[in-house]
């Protein structure tokens, strides 16, 4: 079998049936642990230093524990006979006989008996014994209440529960149940939201969590361990970008590169100057691009690809940014130190122009309910407007810079903008609290994750930093490789569960990193000028758009030889120049 380092003579190894051998060779990648451990099941167990028998190639699995969790899993699967047979054959009982008695007593409601057994099981921690007693007696109390035996319940509370002298607040809550049973929806204890007793099986589960795992093996322990390994494999998989890729137990999971969009499926050539901003709508059905040519284009995304829907003209200055309304029906566009315009997506009509006398807008964003818009102003303030143009609020002072992006979290609470050369302001506008992300280098742009928990920050020194902004502000990862020396280059989150980071670059490549490991996985050539911005479709993890100084937008996708259209060029790239 080509095993590494196993010197056992063949006679000691039991013969594997041909069916088992087939399973082993099917999908095995010779990654040591998985394949070899199946074979080692037949091998003689080793002796660890501690004296306990160990199991498995690394000698770190305790055999007794392993057998017990397998037995537990067999019982959970309903294979009671197999579970019992395993206990017999291995000589290792899942639970001691006392524990079995205890479990039976709980399920039968023999409260006095169970308390006695509990004290005999041999627990060392007195607090655990008391807490377990509390749970049992609490159940007794509730069952009395359910049977309307109020005096018995009261007696239990007074003479059995109270003397335990633990959890006094819960004791007080329990007494309230007698006073007004119908009204009691306890806010403090979420597990008890009716005054009825929960099932005895539930009680057993709670006790299992309380008692040490050596006494009672926790529910679903083997499943938990297996899932943990699978999740770790999936998270380490650098190319994992498809929902339907199942993870098998037979071999360590590793996707091939083919799920990462790396083929230019379309080149959109309509803008007449550099494109500086690009953004898919929330539903992925539209793409907005804005340009130095003072126009914004709304593109429509459907099964046939990306096509031009509207060209929005009206700005007198180049566009700095765009922002989709939460329901994707409207679009905000901002001219560089000019005005903010609000457009209707289906008609292409300009619905409103927002301006401030003597000042220019630098960024724009929507409130999550779509009723207000925000914009950064070139006097460093941030304004908030009603849709009809009435200015509601203005945060003055050092709130935003001329080159800053603007984001509002989807709970509407936080406004995010670059407020100083090396700092990003997170302004909680309700609590009026300010937090700052402080960097050592100048910040050039940033991007907010869809779940609002992370911020991707682009720095002057060509690094991209990932910050966690939920709770404490923490630097999580750094991404390097792209080029930035003079321009504002934007980056974004994307792919399945936003597991990837994409960025533009001054060397005309589109860079893609695996977010979790920080590894650079793609640098896509094609553009003939600096790639200023990228946007990954929120609806389609296989569609990435990039826009460049070369005036084009590239739509990147998977290499699928799918629909061939009449006007496709021989290299398979579909060009769209806006003519119908």
């Amino acid at each position: 079998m080509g095993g590494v380092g196993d010197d056992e003579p063949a006679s000691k190894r039991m013969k594997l049936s041909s069916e088992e051998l087939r399973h082993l060779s099917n999908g095995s990648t010779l990654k040591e642990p998985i394949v070899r451990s199946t074979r080692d099941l037949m091998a003689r167990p080793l002796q660890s230093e501690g004296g306990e028998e160990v199991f498995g190639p690394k000698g770190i699995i305790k055999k007794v524990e392993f057998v017990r969790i397998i037995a537990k899993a067999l019982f959970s699967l309903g294979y009671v006979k197999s579970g019992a047979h395993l206990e017999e054959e291995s000589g290792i009982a899942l639970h001691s006989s006392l524990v079995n008695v205890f479990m039976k007593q709980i399920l039968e409601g023999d409260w006095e008996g169970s308390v006695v057994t509990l004290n005999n099981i041999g627990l060392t921690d007195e607090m655990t014994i008391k807490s377990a007693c509390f749970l049992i007696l609490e159940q007794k109390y509730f069952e009395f209440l359910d049977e309307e035996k109020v005096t018995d319940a009261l007696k239990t509370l007074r003479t059995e529960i109270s003397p335990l002298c633990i959890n006094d607040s819960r004791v007080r809550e329990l007494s309230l149940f007698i006073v007004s049973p119908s009204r009691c929806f306890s806010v403090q204890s979420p597990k008890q939201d009716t005054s009825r007793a929960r099932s005895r099986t539930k009680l057993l589960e709670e006790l299992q969590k309380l008692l040490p795992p050596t006494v009672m093996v926790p529910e679903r322990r083997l499943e938990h361990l297996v899932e943990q390994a699978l999740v770790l494999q999936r998270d380490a998989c650098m190319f994992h970008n498809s929902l339907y890729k199942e993870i098998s137990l037979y071999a360590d999971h590793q996707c091939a590169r083919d799920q990462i969009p790396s083929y230019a499926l379309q080149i959109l050539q309509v803008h007449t100057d550099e494109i500086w901003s690009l953004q898919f709508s929330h539903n992925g059905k539209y793409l907005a691009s804005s340009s130095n040519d003072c126009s914004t284009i709304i593109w429509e995304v459907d099964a046939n690809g990306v096509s031009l829907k509207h060209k929005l003209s009206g700005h007198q200055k180049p566009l700095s940014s765009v922002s989709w309304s939460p329901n994707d029906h409207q679009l905000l566009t901002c001219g560089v130190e000019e005005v903010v315009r609000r457009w209707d997506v289906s008609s292409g009509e300009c619905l409103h122009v927002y301006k401030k006398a003597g000042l220019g807008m630098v960024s724009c964003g929507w409130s999550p309910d779509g009723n207000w818009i925000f914009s950064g102003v070139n006097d460093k303030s941030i304004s908030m407007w009603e849709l009809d143009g009435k200015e509601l609020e203005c945060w003055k002072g050092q709130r935003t810079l001329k080159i800053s992006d603007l984001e509002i979290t989807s709970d509407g609470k936080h406004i995010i903008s670059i407020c100083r050369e090396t700092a990003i302001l997170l302004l909680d506008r309700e609590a009026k609290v300010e937090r700052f992300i402080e960097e050592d280098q100048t910040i050039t742009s940033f991007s907010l994750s869809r779940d609002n928990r992370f911020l991707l920050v682009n720095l002057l020194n060509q690094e991209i930093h990932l910050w966690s902004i939920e709770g404490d502000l923490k630097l999580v990862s750094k991404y390097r490789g792209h080029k930035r020396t003079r321009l504002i280059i934007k980056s974004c989150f994307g792919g399945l569960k936003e597991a990837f980071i994409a960025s533009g670059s001054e060397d005309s490549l589109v860079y893609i990193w695996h977010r979790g490991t920080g590894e650079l996985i793609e640098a896509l050539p094609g553009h003939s000028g600096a790639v200023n911005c990228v946007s990954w479709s929120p609806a389609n993890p296989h569609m990435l758009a990039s826009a460049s100084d070369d005036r084009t937008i590239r739509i990147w996708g998977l290499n699928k030889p799918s629909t061939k259209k009449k006007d496709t060029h021989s290299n398979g790239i579909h060009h769209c120049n806006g003519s119908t």
Partner: protein
Amino acid sequence: MGRLFVVNLEGKVYSCKHCKIHLALVDDIVSKSFQSRHGKAYLFSKVVNVSAGEKEDRMMMTGLHTVVDIFCIGCGSIVGWKYEFAHEKGQKYKEGKSVLERFKVSGPDGSHYWVSHETHGGSDADDV
């Protein structure tokens, strides 16, 4: 050329002679006794809105230094150089600092500097 990332300085500013982009603050001048091919040059602790060229070892008036030429990001014209590494111990204070040629920048009052006729061949100085 893309959307330039421009840092705007506040205070008395030296800017690029051609495109007026801010380069450095008067407050950040470390020394005015430097020289370049075009005459006077100032050493600054901080310069913004420049991009750097390739690292080069250059023999200057005060010894061997590793420098990079710096270019205005707006118009690309060379405006001076930055010290990356000083080979002599006494010159270490220059590391990380940048020199702007007076000829290439407009002063805070908008003034320009004209190349004097006795330009030296050498660059550098501060001490001899």
